[in-house]
């Protein structure tokens, strides 16, 4: 019972990480980024390509390099696609288009078969036992990193100039512009930070999951559920939502069946949307 709970929380940590990027983009730009899962997938594949640099099979050393690559890549994508249609186009279609483009570009290069990323066995199967509860090492690290990033993000948004500019843009773009905030730069930075966070989430799951072009889709759906439950654009909400989804998935796959587990997440999402369309942390009034 407690083991299932812990497993759920650990898995939830990964969803939290993913949901963090998702909710940041939505909060600042009011865009639901359907290509978010593909950032994670790209993170996994970039990790795979950079793995030889890590030498000993521990992927965590290449995080800085991954962040730089993801930042440049996502900034270029933003400049080429989102920038021309800001404020007038259909973001849903654009990001679904990007989703397909990334998925199948990667499939063309690496093929559709799931690839094992050469992570050291000591990390892959490593675990810590505390009071009869097994904590898998990669999951624990992922969980800790995700909690650290939520805390870091909250501090960033509340104390730095850029963070405050982001919150101002999120509240009211027009007022932010009149106050001298360069909203375009804020958008591009928020977008790229979100891409980096999601890319790092991709790196964190490499010891646990195989890399294939559509790996991001399932995570995207879970993260959507998490983010909507915790209200789109709300950081603590995303954390609660992510952990909750992890728990639901863990309990459903343990006590019901492995096939039912994905359905439960969706049912929960539909239920939340019907009862509280603005999510559990919604104040109402502010519309998407």
């Amino acid at each position, binding site marked *: 019972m407690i083991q299932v709970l812990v497993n759920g929380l650990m898995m939830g940590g990964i969803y939290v990480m993913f949901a963090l990027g998702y909710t940041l983009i939505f909060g600042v730009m009011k865009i*639901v980024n359907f290509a978010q899962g593909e950032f994670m997938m790209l993170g996994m594949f970039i990790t795979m390509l950079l793995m030889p640099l890590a030498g000993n099979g521990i992927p965590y050393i290449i995080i800085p390099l991954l962040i730089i690559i993801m930042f440049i890549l996502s900034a270029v994508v933003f400049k080429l*696609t989102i920038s*021309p*249609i800001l404020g*007038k*186009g*259909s973001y*849903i*279609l*654009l990001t*679904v*288009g*990007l*989703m*397909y*483009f*990334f*998925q*199948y*570009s990667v*499939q*063309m290069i690496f*093929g*559709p078969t799931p690839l094992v990323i050469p992570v050291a066995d000591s990390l892959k199967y490593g675990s810590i036992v505390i009071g009869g509860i097994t904590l898998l090492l990669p999951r624990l690290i992922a969980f800790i990193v995700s909690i650290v990033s939520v805390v870091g993000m909250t501090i960033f948004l509340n104390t730095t100039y850029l963070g405050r500019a982001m919150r101002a843009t999120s509240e009211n773009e027009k007022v932010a512009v009149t106050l001298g905030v360069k909203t375009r730069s804020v958008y591009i930075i928020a977008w790229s930070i979100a891409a980096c966070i999601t890319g790092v989430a991709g790196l964190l799951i490499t010891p646990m999951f195989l890399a294939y*072009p559509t790996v991001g*889709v399932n995570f995207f*759906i879970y993260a*959507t*559920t998490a983010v*909507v439950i915790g209200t*789109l654009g709300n950081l603590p909400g995303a954390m609660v939502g992510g952990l909750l989804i992890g728990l639901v998935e863990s309990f459903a796959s343990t006590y019901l069946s492995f*096939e039912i587990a*994905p*359905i439960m997440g*969706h*049912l929960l*999402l*539909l239920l939340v*949307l*019907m009862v509280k*369309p603005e999510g559990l942390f919604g104040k109402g009034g502010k*519309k*998407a």
Partner: protein
Amino acid sequence: MKTKISISKLIKNNPAVLIFILLALAAPFIFTSGYSRRVLVEIYIFSALGCAWNILGGFAKQTNWAASSFFSIGAFTGLILYLNFEISPWIGLFAGMVISGIIAFVIGAPILRIRGVYFSIACISVCEIVLQLWKNWEVSGKANGLSIPSCVGVMNFWNMQFTSNLWFYYITFGWMLIVVAVSSWINRSRLGYYLKAVRDDEDAAISMGLSTHRYKIIAFIVSAALLAGTGTFYAFKLTSVDPMLVASFDVSVKIVLCAIIGGIGTIWGPVLGAFTIVFLFEFASSMLGTFGGGVGYMAYGLLMVLVVIFRPAGLISLASPIEEKILSLVKSKKELEKQ
């Protein structure tokens, strides 16, 4: 009466439509190969799907990503009734449409209260749930789906199985015209104007005393029934159907894409979109096949991005100046005759 007028008006106002219909009727005798006919049938199927989706997604701009769920309901209902009870697909067609309509009502009533992005997200959830249900239901053959063994039934019109692919060409073409006619009728009807009011400003529409929820449900039901009808034809054309082929999110994207690339909220836009997309997909898969699978989908993604950036009104916006020119030519000729 009303429909008759609108159809004759449609043809009078759109000389291009008449030319298109005549060309399409003659096409199978120009393109005699099985492959090209198959591609054309695929185009008509996706034209019909795009038009059906357009009723809610285009006129009211409620981006419904659960289109493939209703499509699959039609496909599986037709096959299950035929394989288990030997009921003709022509009856299964209507059974599928009715079932799909009922399910659309049950799902739509709560879901259509949700607005904007949240509605789209809820639809994605519905799509995934339906896919999982097909994958786990014994009667629909779980993940393998259903197929018509060649020994079952006689090749005839009643069983919707033919030796010549010409039959399906005209059946799907006719069905597409029916769907286009329904969509055109809705466009001009009171319902169409209500839906457009929802698209422009739902709050304003509500404050004018319009019960927008009711009209969205009606549009959802009509759209779902037409999607299901198309599904039945598709299933019997392919003779074998599995959940991933008809119920996955990818299929929804393809349907939505037909409507959007062609021109969202227009009558003939989805048809143009289906032509573009199916051709593009076939072209990419056959010409660029050496790069490995998935080129078609990559081209989709790219096209989608490009259309959103450069042609947000869809490809049909390219056609309207040409059409205007033809219309003005016809008008000036008439005026000359009068003088």
